[in-house]
């Protein structure tokens, strides 16, 4: 057989499998025309496929079979599939059959025997051989999490314990259901039925959040619907939040041992950033997207895992409504009603669904799917209430991103490509504001537009700085500053851009220009500091800026200028130290020492010997306390001279 021949056989085989068994013979007769051998190949393959049963379906198991049969060892007949045989008992529970399997463990259907009391439960076991510290820890977390959760839409924890050989297990409510997406598809639920189911899931997740639990793994296979009631399962990788909302063990950010289900993962999960309740809001957004369109937000043909990650972090999701007309396979009756009847009516039905999704539902889903956690719904409850408002026909709070924001996003993504667009871009938006102005719009709308414009200008400067284009950043910052001199953000942008451009001029050898820019940066920082005397961040900016200026003055041979800059920097640094008070950090103390030293050295150079020595001794004291040995050695030598 050649690869080409196999390819041919495979395609026929795939095609035959897609057809009902009784149609296959005819299908093969037609397609294999005169090639009897080809037909026999496919037929034997189909027969093998039927006979194969569970062949290879369970991963290779039980290495001990080999090792334990080593002649030097005692033979063992412990030969169940890395788990437990049917009929195995733990406590009052007897295993019936395995109903689920994960990388670390398995879930068994079991019956509880208690005199007359008989009840079916699901038992989650750690697999033998998988009882590493990490997995046991996770198991304990899940048990702790579940013990505190009692909600109609969360599978209940009934019991827990350890097997005789010390492996922990959890006894859970047995939910004999269907994953929520399949349930909707099979039952051909309407949009509003889907939304109601989804809101029930939201109530479970919100309840968990109120109990400081983030699920982190919301996806259809973890939501089983039985008797029309969805139940959230598998808190296996849930996180406990501390009351202030941060996850408790941020240090433990290593990727999960089982590969993460990327499809429902949020940007912050992909990037390994802190997880909050907003993470569940995002995954719920993906779930709703899927329930309403049958598709995933970033399209199906993404190829590699890296591409999926990139899409999650960078690419905007598709608009749910745009998918309805693009494809047939939406399993929603609104989309496929009377599909078999007349093709016209099918098109109409799909247009109707598209109309339903366009607008509020689109906005609701896209709001949950925003990349930045803080820009999503504030809570799952808010998300769910917005759907409630939609169902009742009231206005929803979800809005599309403002044009200004979207423009800024565009600039950020394409920073280098928008070289000439600074002026044009700002001009365009100015025109938009003006035209807003000329229409009879409320003052509030105008104010909103102004704010959007302001934010866009800021985004432009940030984008250029980020792209390493300080010249353009400076130009953009000047435009912004002249438009709104009172806006502290504009002031800061101008300061940062001046500083960055100054650095560029300095390294390009244009010292005069660099000096001018550094001075301009300093002026802006000092103005900011004046209005925020207790803001350590601003003070630090002034300090850095002053020091930079001093260094370049010194290089230019302007000793008095440098001395005055360094003296000013010393004052600010000491002010910073005072702000930190008893909480002063080693870093700040080192800054104070360095500032004293700089001033001391310059004073000496200027002939002010006593004052200079005094500063150097002060620096030496601090360095000694900090245990900064090289500095101590050097200063000691300097002072000895």
């Amino acid at each position, binding site marked *: 057989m050649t690869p080409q021949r196999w390819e041919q056989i495979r395609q026929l085989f795939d095609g035959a499998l897609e057809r009902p068994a009784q149609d296959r013979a005819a299908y093969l007769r037609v397609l294999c025309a005169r090639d009897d051998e080809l037909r026999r190949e496919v037929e034997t393959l189909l027969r093998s496929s039927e*006979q194969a049963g569970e062949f290879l379906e369970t*991963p290779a198991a039980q290495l001990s079979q080999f090792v334990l049969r080593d002649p030097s060892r005692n033979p063992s007949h412990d030969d169940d599939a890395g788990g437990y045989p049917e009929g195995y008992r733990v406590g009052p529970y007897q295993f019936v059959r395995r109903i689920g399997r994960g990388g670390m463990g398995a879930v068994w259907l079991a019956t509880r025997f208690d005199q007359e009391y008989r009840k079916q439960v699901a038992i989650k076991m750690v697999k033998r051989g998988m009882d590493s510290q*990490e997995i046991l820890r996770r198991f304990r977390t899940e048990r702790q999490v579940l013990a505190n959760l009692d909600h109609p839409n969360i599978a209940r924890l009934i019991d827990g314990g350890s097997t005789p050989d010390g492996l922990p297990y959890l006894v859970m409510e047995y939910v004999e259901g269907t994953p929520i997406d399949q349930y909707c598809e099979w039952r051909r639920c309407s949009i509003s039925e889907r939304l109601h189911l989804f809101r029930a899931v939201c109530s479970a997740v919100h309840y968990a959040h109120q109990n400081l639990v983030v699920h982190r793994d919301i996806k259809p296979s973890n939501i089983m619907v039985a008797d029309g009631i969805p139940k959230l399962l598998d808190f296996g990788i849930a996180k406990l939040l501390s009351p202030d909302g941060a996850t408790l063990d941020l240090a433990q950010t290593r990727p999960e041992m089982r590969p993460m289900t990327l499809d429902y993962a949020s940007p912050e999960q992909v990037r390994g950033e802190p997880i909050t309740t907003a993470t569940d809001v995002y995954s719920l957004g993906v779930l709703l997207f899927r329930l309403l369109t049958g598709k995933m937000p970033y399209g199906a043909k993404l190829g590699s895992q890296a591409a999926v990650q990139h899409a999650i972090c960078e690419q905007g999701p598709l608009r749910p409504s745009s998918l309805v007309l693009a494809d047939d396979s939406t399993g929603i009756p609104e989309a496929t009603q009377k599909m078999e009847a007349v093709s016209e009516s099918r098109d109409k039905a799909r247009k109707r669904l598209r109309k339903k999704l366009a607008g509020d539902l689109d906005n609701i889903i896209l709001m949950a799917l925003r990349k930045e956690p803080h820009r999503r719904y504030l809570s799952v409850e808010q998300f769910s209430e917005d759907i409630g408002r939609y169902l009742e026909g009231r206005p929803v709070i979800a809005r599309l991103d403002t044009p200004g924001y979207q423009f800024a996003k565009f600039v950020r993504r394409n920073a280098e490509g928008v070289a000439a667009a600074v002026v044009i871009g700002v001009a365009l938006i100015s025109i938009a504001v003006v035209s807003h102005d000329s229409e009879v719009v409320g003052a509030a709308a105008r104010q909103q537009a102004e704010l959007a414009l302001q934010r866009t200008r800021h985004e432009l400067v940030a984008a250029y700085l980020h792209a390493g284009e300080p010249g353009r950043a400076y130009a953009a910052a000047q435009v912004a500053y002249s438009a709104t001199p009172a806006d502290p953000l504009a002031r800061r942008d101008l300061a940062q851009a001046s500083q960055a451009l100054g650095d560029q001029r300095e390294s390009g050898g244009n010292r005069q220009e660099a000096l001018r820019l550094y001075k301009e940066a300093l002026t802006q920082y000092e103005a900011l500091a004046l209005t925020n005397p207790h803001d350590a961040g601003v003070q630090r900016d002034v300090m850095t800026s002053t020091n930079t200026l001093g260094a370049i003055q010194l290089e230019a041979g302007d000793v008095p200028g440098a001395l005055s800059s360094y003296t000013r920097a010393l004052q600010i640094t000491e002010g910073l130290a005072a702000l930190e008070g008893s909480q002063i950090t080693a870093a700040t103390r080192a800054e104070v020492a360095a500032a004293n030293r700089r001033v001391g050295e310059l004073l000496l150079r200027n002939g002010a010997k006593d004052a200079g020595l005094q500063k150097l001794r002060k620096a030496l004291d601090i360095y000694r306390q900090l245990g900064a040995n090289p500095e101590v050695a050097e200063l000691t030598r300097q002072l000895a001279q």
Partner: protein
Amino acid sequence: MDESTLGDSGEVTRLLGEIGRGQKQAVNDLLPLVYDELHRLARSYFRRERGEHTMQPTALVHEAYIRMVDQRAPLESHGHFMAVAATQMRRVLLDYARKHRAARRGGDDQKVLLEDTMVICEQRPVDMILLDVALEKLAVLDARQAQLVELRFFAGLSVEETAQVMGVSPATVKRSWSSARAFLHREMTGGSLDAAALGADSSAL
């Protein structure tokens, strides 16, 4: 963690990074490292006192990942690692099978020999040596399908996980999986066309 190879995690992570950038040589450098680690894990596991335990290759592969790869490595490294580890797990199992057959040779009868090359799966045992021969045939016809079998059967990845590692859709994995499984089953049960022509009983296992 006595004779741990944790010190290598930087090296392994670096190699995974190179694989990510498309440097094929890195795969060859990584293969022996992973093979050794899987072997070492299997041996050390059974040297501990819990001889009654069973150890699943899937678990070994995951443990190897945790021990060998810097846990801050990018997520895609996981996929590259799994692809390499699946191939090597297949080799580890095959080695065990061959070794034990050799150890049993002489004295014992053929039946025992056969049993010793089996990996027990949920429903029925799978003969590792026969599977290896069949897989080699499949690899000649379609290397990607052979890799898929390694990922699903030897590394124990789910359809979705396999799809991620191979960069294809789950639907493609499912389709490809069923023809690969049918092919292997046919090869291993003597049900291929050549054998059928000779009148072999295709239903025998």
